[in-house]
Structure formats: structure tokens, C-alpha cells
């Protein structure tokens, strides 16, 4: 499976090539990839159904406890299936939606890469691997939201999504580190078994906080919900796939995954259920203020994500059953509705539902699909959405803390969602036919197949919810609720949830009837809404840009002497502090030198002093050269030929570079006042003294076994080389060298960019680029 996922990334890279061979049929061909992986997963069903977890082990960096091990239990199996199944349908849909679009290959590359990242995310057993895939989904999401990168608002939305989710990602990383430290393992399979130790650990609250920030940003919980509606700038297949069915559920998935490890405490229950319930109500309330069909759906996704979070917070076996049912129901109907929204946009040329009407006459099949999916969204029998909603209401009513708040917010969300469903599915299709920018036709079969299948499944599972019993049992086993009997049913008898449903039906229909007038009333709330979390985000970003400008002006003003002074002072402060207060400086080092060594040392000192006092640039360069060659001599004296050769070569190349720049420099001038020179002397002197003390301490204290002994002993047997320096560079510490290679390459590119920029801007000093449009 790991090979399949990694291979998937390769396939993603090959998408442009495939596009050359298959042309417009490429998405169809590519959909075979998720389809085949899905068949493999379905083959695992007997194992999953027995409640067991499949652990596919694969070592990656054993030294750091990082593995590519995949953990397939009921929870990840269900998510993987949704990712692959909806992924395949979305690919088919894309074939028609972006038919003939010139950037289709680029779209497919990122979409497939996302699909594989998401799959890796849900299947990973190792926290580090999970985090890598988590960030990959953020990046691919960024690229997909900004797909129409010529459009400023799309770029802004993409940045917003990235900053919010990647910022949360940082918190998540901190949370993961704490989790691994507290639990003593990076493996989720092991951590979930150490729940008691984790819950009583001193770091439990900070760890929980960091993990929640990570999960809440990703899953668009209040107050981070605002990025999701903005993300609707993406092409509709992306909205259907990333921003409703899969990526935004990553946060919820993570919470579910960690539920056995961290769940059940008061902090967990309260934060999740209250944030979830509040997000639900906020999402539903904001939804009805919009007329853009995609925004309506996006806010209702926010509401659904809130529901899932709340159910996890409640954490009773009943709530977990509701979680699974609602998750499945939402993925099916929301995927379908987004695809329908794409059809409407594609056929009519507008996204505004108030501009559409009577479309059932021209696109009857789409109207049926939309109606079925919307009924599921509204939670109407006999659809799966109804089953999910009843279970959800039942769990909310069974809440032990803040029951009134939770039930109240849930009911508000329920009737507003009903109104949203009615607006989305009936407004465009009923009433009189309206003029739209494009003349609508029935959707092409490729675009209709996906939503029809998803809506069909909603209906099928709604009529026979018992078929899902096995899946639900297996999934909640992964959530820590084993041996719980589950019988999903459409009809639960006349009980309180049903009464609540009926009341919300009545209220919802009322909202729908008076929607236009209600919107006018709500418009008056705008000035208040403008101070929501999104304004906070804007202020934060503006503040960050201002802080960056300030610190750039302070620290990176283009004067090398300032850089040097800052660097040296920092070094002095940190190392000097450690040296003086942590370790007493060791001064009894017998200083003895042969005469020739003293000569070399004297040469270096002379070179340094000469470089400072010379009034000609050429002479100063020569003086620095004396120092460089003396250092090379030192290496020779202490038998380090490799270092000596390197030093000499570097000196030579420095001369070449100096020759090239020397003529371009202005005339030698004294720029600093005597006071500044005195200050520089003090800083330089202190740095020298500190380095000397440091050397003495290093030479004096033989506290640790020296690594050079190991290297001398193992260079030939393990590295097959007699040149220890080289064996270190290319074998023992090759990873460091690889990093340095990248640094060198970046430095070269930096030089190139600076010189080019310098030349283009007409020889004036480069000013830092202003990023005013970053918002």
C-alpha cells in the first residue's frame, strides 16, 4: 500500500505526459488509480469487519523512530474509502468540468498529489509521517484554491487558507512532539493504548491545546472557520473534494484518531462539544446570509464539521455511532451537492441562486439528483442524512454538561440547515425559468454520474441503514468503543429527537419562505459581522508585515558592519553567558609552542592588524590573504592536508571574486566616526577573548569520549576509505553534506538573483520587496 501511495505521487508527476497521450480522456484514465486502490481496500473488509487493525510496517528513518507504517483499522479504512471513492468520481467529473481547459494537466498533477497525501494522512501510523502528509494536504490545497492564479481574490483566498491551516500545523507539530514525549512513542497504534498515562500526564493540557488548534484550523472550527468559504474560489471539483468531503475532515479525523488516547476528560469534552456546537450554529447562521450557492454550501460544511467535532466531544458510544453515520451521510450528500453546484455554474454561468429559477424544465435529471441530495442534507426520511441527524440529536440530548446550550445550538443549526437545503435544491429548479448568462442544458453524463451515484447511495443507505451496522461497529472500534452493539434504523419511534426534527422542519420552511426578506434584515448586521475573526486575521497579517518591515529595517539594513555587530553580540551574549555562568572557564592550559608555530601565529596577528589599519583596499585584501594562508599553514602543521588544500583553494577563489568586484566598489572611504570604531574594537576584542576562553575550555575538559577516535577506528572498516575527512563528508555525515549542497546551491542562486536584480534596477541598492497585496 505504501508503494501504491508513493507511486501515486509519481503518477501525479506523470499527469502532463498522460495528457499528451490521452488528451481529454486523461481524468478518466487517472480515475483508474483511486478505483484500483479502492478495490484493494475493499478486499480487506473481512479483516476490518472482525474489528482488527492491519499494520503494514515499513521502516523509513529507524534512527529517528520515523516509519512509513500504515495503520488500517475501521476508522482509517472508512476515510480511505471515502477519499478514493469520491476522488475517482471527482476525477470523472473534472473531465467534463474543465473540458479543454489549458491548465488541466497542472490541475490533475495537484489533485492526484492531494489525493495521495490525504490517503497517507489517514493511513499513517507514525506521527511524523502523518504530519508530513498533513502539511502536504495544506500545500496542495493552497495550489488548488489558487488554481486561477490570475485572479487576485483566488490568490488571497489561497494564501488565507494556507496561513490558517499551516499556522495550525505548527501548533499541531508542537502537540505531536509533546504527545510523543508524554506517551513514549511516535506510533499512533501504541499511543492509543496508553490513554490513561497520557491523560494524567503533566503536559496533558498544553498538548491538548496545541493539537486542538491544529485540528480546529484544518477543520474550520470557530474562530478559524472563515478560510473555508473563501476557499470556494477554487474550481468546483476541488470544493467538492477537498473542502467538503476530505481535507477539511482531516482535523476531525485526527481528533477521532486521538479520541482513545486523549478523550474522555472534562477539558476534552467541554472544548470539543462547545466549540463544535457553536461552530454548527455559526455556520448555519452565516450560510443563510449568502446567495452564492458555493458559499451557502461552504457554510453548511462548516456546520457539519462543527457537528462532527461536537459528537466526538460528547464521546459516548451513541455519539460515536452518530459520528460515523453523520460523517458518511455528509460526505455523500455534500459531495453530490457541490458537484450539482458546479453543474449549475457550468451551465448557467452564475453562482447566485437568486438569479436562477425553473431549471427543472431544462435539466430534469440534475434537478432529481439535487433534490435527493438536499433532502439528505435537510435530514429528511428516508435518506441517510435523516438517520445521521436523528442519532446526532439523540446524542446531544444525552449530553451531561451544558445540555441546554448544546441542544439549543443544535436545534438552531438543524432548522437553518433545512432552510439551506431548500434554498440550494429548490430555488434554482422551481418557479419560472429565468434568464442566465449562459443558456442552460442538461449536464453531460460525466458530470452527472458522480453526484447521481453519491445521491443514490444516500438513498440506498437511508432505506437500508442496517447494511452499515458492520462498518459502524468496525469504525467505532477504532475510536475506542469496542463491543458496542449497533443497529442503525430509519424509524426510531416517536421520541424527542423526532419532535425536534418536526419543529425544525416547520421553522426551516418558514425561513425558506421568507428568505429574501430575512436577508434584508440580516444585512443590517454587516457592520457587526465585519468585526469577526476574519478581521482579526487581516489585522494579524497586517501586523506581521509591519513587524517584518520593522525588523528588516533594524537588522537587515544592508550594512555589513551592522550584520557583523549583531551576529557577534548575539554570539557573545549566548556563548559568553554559558561559558561564564554554566561552566567555569578553564584557564590552566599549558601554552607551549614551537618557534615555527609562533611565527605562523604572529603572521596571522600581523595580517589581522594590517587589514584593519590599511588605507588602500588592495593592501587590505592582501593582508586578509596573509591570514588565510597562515590558517592553511596551521592545517599543514597539524597534518590536515584536506583542510589545508581546501583553505588554499578557497583563498585563490576569493582572490578571483575580489578581482571581479574590486573595480566596482566605490573609493575607499572612512565611514565610521572614532566612537564607532572604538565600539567596534571593543566588540571585536571581546569576541576574540571569548573564543580564546572557549578554546581553552574545550581543550581543558575531556568530559566526553572524543568522536574522532570512533571515526579513526571505523573509517576503513565501515566507510571503505582511508581519508577520514572524505569518509565523514560522503558517508558518516552525508546527510549534513547534502544539506550543505543545497545551501551552496541556494547561495549561488541568491548571488545570481541579487546581481540580476541590481542590474535591472539600474544600479541602485536593492530595496526589500513590499508585499502589500498579502493582506
Amino acid at each position, binding site marked *: 500500500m505504501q508503494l501504491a501511495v508513493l507511486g501515486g505521487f509519481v503518477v501525479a508527476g506523470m499527469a502532463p505526459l498522460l495528457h499528451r497521450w490521452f488528451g481529454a480522456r486523461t481524468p478518466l484514465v487517472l480515475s483508474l488509480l483511486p478505483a484500483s486502490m479502492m478495490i484493494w481496500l475493499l478486499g480487506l473488509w473481512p479483516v476490518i469487519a472482525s474489528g482488527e487493525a492491519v499494520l503494514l510496517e515499513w521502516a523509513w528513518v529507524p534512527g529517528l523512530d520515523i516509519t512509513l507504517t500504515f495503520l488500517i483499522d475501521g476508522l482509517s479504512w472508512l476515510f480511505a474509502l471515502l477519499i478514493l471513492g469520491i476522488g475517482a468520481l471527482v476525477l470523472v467529473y473534472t473531465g467534463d468540468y474543465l473540458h479543454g481547459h489549458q491548465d488541466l494537466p497542472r490541475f490533475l498533477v495537484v489533485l492526484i498529489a492531494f489525493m495521495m497525501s490525504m490517503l497517507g494522512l489517514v493511513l499513517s501510523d507514525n506521527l511524523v509521517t502523518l504530519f508530513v502528509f498533513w502539511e502536504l494536504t495544506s500545500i496542495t490545497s493552497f495550489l488548488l484554491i489558487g488554481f486561477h492564479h490570475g485572479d487576485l481574490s483566488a490568490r488571497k483566498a489561497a494564501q488565507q487558507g494556507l496561513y490558517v491551516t499551516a499556522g495550525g500545523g505548527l501548533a499541531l507539530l508542537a502537540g505531536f512532539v509533546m504527545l510523543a514525549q508524554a506517551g513514549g512513542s511516535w506510533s499512533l497504534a501504541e499511543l492509543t493504548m496508553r490513554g490513561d498515562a497520557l491523560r494524567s500526564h503533566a503536559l496533558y493540557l498544553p498538548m491538548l491545546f496545541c493539537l486542538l488548534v491544529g485540528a480546529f484550523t484544518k477543520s474550520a472550527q470557530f474562530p478559524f472557520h472563515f478560510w473555508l468559504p473563501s476557499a470556494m474560489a477554487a474550481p468546483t471539483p476541488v470544493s467538492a473534494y477537498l473542502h467538503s468531503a476530505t481535507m477539511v475532515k482531516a482535523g476531525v479525523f485526527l481528533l477521532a484518531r486521538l479520541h482513545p488516547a486523549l478523550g474522555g476528560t472534562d477539558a476534552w469534552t467541554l472544548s470539543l462539544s462547545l466549540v463544535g456546537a457553536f461552530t454548527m450554529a455559526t455556520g448555519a447562521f452565516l450560510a443563510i446570509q449568502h446567495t452564492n450557492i458555493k458559499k451557502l454550501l461552504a457554510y453548511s460544511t462548516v456546520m457539519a464539521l462543527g457537528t462532527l467535532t461536537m459528537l466526538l466531544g460528547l464521546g459516548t458510544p451513541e455519539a460515536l455511532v452518530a459520528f460515523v453515520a453523520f460523517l458518511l451521510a455528509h460526505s455523500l450528500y455534500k459531495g453530490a451537492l457541490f458537484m450539482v453546484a458546479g453543474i449549475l455554474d457550468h451551465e448557467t454561468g452564475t453562482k447566485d441562486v437568486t438569479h436562477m429559477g425553473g431549471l427543472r424544465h431544462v435539466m430534469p435529471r440534475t434537478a432529481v439528483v439535487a433534490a435527493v441530495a438536499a433532502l439528505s442534507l435537510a435530514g429528511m426520511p428516508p435518506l441517510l442524512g435523516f438517520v445521521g441527524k436523528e442519532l446526532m440529536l439523540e446524542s446531544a440530548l444525552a449530553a451531561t454538561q451544558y445540555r441546554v446550550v448544546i441542544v439549543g445550538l443544535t436545534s438552531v443549526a438543524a432548522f437553518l440547515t433545512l432552510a439551506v437545503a431548500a434554498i440550494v435544491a429548490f430555488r434554482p429548479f422551481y418557479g419560472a425559468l429565468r434568464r442566465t448568462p449562459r443558456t442552460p442544458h442538461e449536464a453531460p453524463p460525466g458530470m452527472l454520474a458522480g453526484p447521481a451515484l453519491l445521491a443514490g447511495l444516500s438513498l440506498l443507505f437511508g432505506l437500508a441503514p442496517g447494511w452499515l451496522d458492520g462498518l459502524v461497529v468496525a469504525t467505532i472500534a477504532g475510536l475506542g468503543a469496542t463491543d458496542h452493539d449497533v443497529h442503525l434504523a430509519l424509524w426510531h419511534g416517536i421520541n424527542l429527537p423526532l419532535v425536534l426534527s418536526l419543529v425544525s422542519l416547520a421553522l426551516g420552511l418558514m425561513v425558506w419562505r421568507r428568505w429574501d426578506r430575512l436577508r434584508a434584515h440580516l444585512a443590517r448586521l454587516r457592520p457587526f459581522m465585519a468585526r469577526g475573526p476574519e478581521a482579526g486575521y487581516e489585522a494579524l497579517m497586517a501586523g506581521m508585515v509591519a513587524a517584518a518591515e520593522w525588523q528588516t529595517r533594524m537588522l537587515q539594513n544592508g550594512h555589513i558592519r551592522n550584520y557583523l555587530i549583531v551576529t557577534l553580540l548575539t554570539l557573545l551574549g549566548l556563548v559568553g553567558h554559558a561559558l561564564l555562568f554554566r561552566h567555569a572557564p578553564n584557564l590552566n592550559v599549558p601554552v607551549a609552542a614551537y618557534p615555527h608555530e609562533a611565527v605562523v601565529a604572529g603572521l596571522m596577528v600581523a595580517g589581522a592588524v594590517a587589514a584593519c589599519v590599511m588605507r588602500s583596499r588592495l593592501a587590505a585584501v592582501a593582508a586578509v590573504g596573509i591570514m588565510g594562508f597562515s590558517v592553511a599553514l596551521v592545517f599543514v602543521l597539524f597534518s590536515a592536508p*584536506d583542510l589545508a*588544500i581546501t583553505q588554499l583553494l578557497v583563498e585563490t577563489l576569493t582572490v578571483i571574486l575580489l578581482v*571581479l568586484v574590486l573595480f*566596482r566598489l566605490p573609493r575607499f572611504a572612512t565611514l565610521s566616526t572614532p566612537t564607532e570604531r572604538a565600539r567596534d574594537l571593543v566588540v571585536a576584542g571581546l569576541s576574540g577573548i571569548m573564543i580564546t576562553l572557549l578554546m581553552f575550555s574545550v581543550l581543558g575538559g575531556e568530559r566526553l569520549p572524543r568522536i574522532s577516535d570512533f571515526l579513526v577506528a571505523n573509517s576503513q572498516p565501515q566507510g*571503505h576509505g582511508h581519508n577520514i575527512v*572524505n569518509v565523514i563528508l*560522503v558517508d558518516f555525515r552525508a546527510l549534513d553534506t547534502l544539506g550543505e549542497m543545497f545551501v551552496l*546551491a541556494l547561495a*549561488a542562486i541568491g548571488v545570481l538573483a541579487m546581481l540580476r536584480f541590481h542590474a535591472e534596477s539600474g544600479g541602485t541598492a536593492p530595496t526589500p520587496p513590499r508585499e502589500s497585496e498579502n493582506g
Partner: protein
Amino acid sequence: MVRSGTLILSVAARLLLPLQLLFSLFLLLRGHDEPGGGFIAGLVASGAFALYLFAYGGRATHAMLKVSPRDLIGLGLTLGVFSTLPALWQGEPFFTAQWWTIPVIGFKASTPLLFDIGVYLVVIGSVLTAITALVDTDREDA
């Protein structure tokens, strides 16, 4: 600023270039056992090209190199990363060195050697990128 040099310089550069490059290859290949290695060899080779550059100017050097120094950087980095893959194939930890002996000539091939060649190329590419960029801006000013 850099224009064709004197006769002595041009003749010397032309004669020295192959020798210096050969020497750099020698340093590269023997580097695992004797002083040398990819970094040093790369510096020697860049010195050789720099000499040529001073003698014949930027355009002639570009023409002789045939590839852009920036492509050398890319190639070097690719080789460096590529040399980590055989270990993965063997199921060993990331970056574990792999050694093979090529039968007939008895040459010991290894991933560290491949990696060292990567270092060599990156060094040449980076130094030349910087130097040619400086020379190019000179020409634009002139």
C-alpha cells in the same frame, strides 16, 4: 571589465585547462583514500574555468562549457539525492552506503562516490554561477 588577456595568459589558460580538469578528476576519484574529494576537486575545476574566463571572457567560456552552470547545480543535487535511493531499494536505512565492485577492471563503485560527484558538480556550478554573474553584470555596465 574582463576582456581578453595577454598572449601569455591565453596560451597558458588553454594549455592549463585540460591539465587542471584532469587533476580535479584525479582528486575527485582518489579522494576517498588520499587527500582530495568532491569539494576540493570542484574548487580546482572552478579555478580552471575561472582562469579560462579571465583569458577569453565570459562569452567564450559559456560557449566552451556548453551547459549553464545552473544546470550543473541541478544535476549535482539530483545525483546527491539519487545516491540515497539504492539503500532504500536494499531495504536498508536512508543513505546507507552501498558498494559494488565492477568485475573486469576491479573498480570499486559506490553510492558515496556518486554522492561525491554530486558535490563536485554543485561546487563547480555554484562558483561558476557566481563568477559568471559578476562578469555578466560587468559587461552590461561597460
